[in-house]
């Protein structure tokens, strides 16, 4: 099997809310008050092959954005390793680390918040490539024009400010900024969620064209299963910080294994389904501050057994290229 481009092992991220002075005094005096720990990402292992598109799906609070940010180097993992092209991120020498940081770029959800409103487009896109020596400061306009053309923006607009663009165009600026440093791996965090339907299609097509032209690898984070089905080769489903199922896209949508995946697939509205009788799964998404013991999904799962309440199911290979974390697979 070929060397994966990116390999994540047992990656964990905890956010700790430290006690303030009053809290610490109360604790000393015997109060049961404790630091609050959010297990945003809890032991996640994923392999991403070169040129592949992996879709990462989950509902709010499942840790999908935190995972993306750790890969892009914005957040530091609490434990676990991220291996990029065979070298662990934390063990790279400064030269390698810089190269990895440039090669892994991120595209954000909100095209309004992720662009500096006081900078011209030419500077937003051109700042990083000049700083990192991809082009000379004197050639910034030519360089930026070329990148803008690639993402379908008129280079004439390069002296404008972000507020002069529509949402879809702004997302293209965000994509151009990421592409300007010649990345090989893109983390797209809900990159099309804020766009209108007809604009979504334009950006999805752009992502697919770029993949072909530039041989890019994507981690495509989204809550929208139809988009993920359209664009990904492989899908990772997360629930409350843990991966519950990994499968090739076709397999997953044809035959979901995990009960949570089942529920998700049943509930995604589709244009070709009319006059539905909705049979929603019950209950709320538990707070990641206080996740249920055992399998996180057991309070909402229709097949929950006693074992699910105590023992955490491991992510195991249940068929070639398919992994699922559910006790039901142990055979009854």
């Amino acid at each position: 099997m070929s060397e994966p481009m990116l390999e994540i092992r047992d990656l964990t991220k905890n956010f700790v809310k430290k006690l303030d002075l009053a809290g610490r005094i109360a604790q000393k005096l015997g109060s049961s008050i404790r630091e609050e720990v959010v297990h945003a990402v809890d032991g996640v292992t994923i392999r991403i092959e070169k040129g592949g598109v992996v879709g990462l799906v989950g509902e709010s609070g499942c840790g999908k954005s935190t995972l993306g940010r750790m890969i892009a180097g914005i957040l530091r993992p609490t434990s676990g390793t991220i291996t990029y092209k065979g070298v662990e991120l934390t063990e790279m020498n400064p030269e390698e680390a810089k190269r990895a940081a440039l090669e892994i770029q991120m595209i954000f959800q909100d095209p309004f918040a992720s662009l500096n409103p006081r900078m011209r487009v030419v500077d937003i896109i051109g700042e990083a490539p000049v700083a990192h020596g991809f082009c000379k400061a004197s050639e910034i306009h030519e360089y930026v024009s070329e990148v803008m053309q690639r993402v379908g923006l008129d280079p004439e607009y390069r002296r404008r400010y972000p507020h002069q663009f529509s949402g879809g165009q702004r997302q293209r600026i965000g994509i151009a900024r990421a592409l300007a440093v010649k990345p090989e791996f893109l983390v797209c965090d809900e990159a099309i969620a804020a766009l209108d339907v007809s604009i979504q299609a334009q950006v999805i097509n752009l992502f697919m064209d770029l993949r072909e032209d530039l041989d890019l690898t994507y981690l495509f984070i989204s809550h929208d299963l139809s988009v993920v089905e359209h664009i990904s080769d492989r899908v990772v489903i997360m629930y409350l910080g843990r991966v519950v199922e990994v499968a090739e896209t076709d397999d997953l949508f044809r035959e979901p294994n995990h009960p949570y995946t089942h529920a998700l697939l049943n509930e995604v509205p589709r244009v070709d389904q009319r006059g539905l009788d909705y049979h929603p799964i019950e209950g709320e998404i538990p707070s990641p501050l206080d996740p249920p013991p055992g399998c996180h999904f057991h309070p909402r799962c229709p097949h929950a057994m006693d074992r699910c309440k105590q023992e955490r199911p491991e992510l195991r290979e249940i068929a070639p290229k398919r992994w699922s974390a559910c006790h039901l697979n142990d055979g009854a």
Partner: protein
Amino acid sequence: MSGDVPTLDVRNLKTHFFTKAGVARAVDGVSFSVGKGEVVGLVGESGSGKSVTGFSIIGLVDPPGRVVSGEVLFNGQNLIGLSPEKMRKLRGNRIAMIFQDPMMTLNPVLRVDTQMVETIRAHDSSISKRDALARARDALGQVGIPAPDERLRSYPHQFSGGMRQRVAIAIALLNKPDLIIADEPTTALDVTIQGQILYEAQKLCRETGTSMIWITHDLAVVAGLADKICVMYGGRIVEQGAIDDVLDHPVHPYTRGLLGSVPGHNTRGQRLYQIPGMAPSLLNLPEGCAFQARCPKADEACKQEPEITEPVKGREVRCFHPHLDQDEEIGA
């Protein structure tokens, strides 16, 4: 016989916003009707005028906006030009509205029971507080809130997003309205929670015969829920008809483009159809058909305003060049 009178009949409604930058024709000649117990989906992208249509019906358009002309017949009574007192008697009583953000309906500093009792007694002061509370509890139970007795004494911030939306729906239901206008009520919610809300909405219409206008940008949500669909673009309904007819055999080029741009089953790896360009600003819509600049079929005729025609039985379309041959390629 009153059975022939639809619950709501909107005729040639025009709502314009008189801003400093010019007149924005947000709603410009919209006509549709909602029968008893019928769910009508009002679909469009941002700025298409779908929300303003909803606000105009319930009389909540603020200056500089104004309903310029048209009629809104609610059970035969014209709501346009009704005195504020009379309108207030209807609003929250016979017609209710659910907003995208439930915090818009809920007062953050009042307990849920206070708000619900107020809603009941504002319209019928002869009901005792005790009876009103009982009704409030029933309404909460009806929308699937567990332990309604306890939840009545909670404040809105103690609820999760999905639960808050349920409370908003419960308040809308309190006085058993004839019509509910739902403005993107599930857009901010997670997939499994959205499924639950859709389930409650559907149950409600079937059980109580309440009519509903479901405003959304998401064709897939409307597909599963609605009986009838109205597609809006640039302040006008460009196509309306029975849900199956419109989604399976769209006739207006915009509807066709929109459906083609939705990713879904069997589209993986293929390019999505993309509607070129972006939605025009309501401040300077082109003369004639608002879609002409993005339409593959546009020609000289489209510079005139297209009237409503019925190219297929039961379908109202504003287009000079409807797609009557369904085998034709999108965009051809």
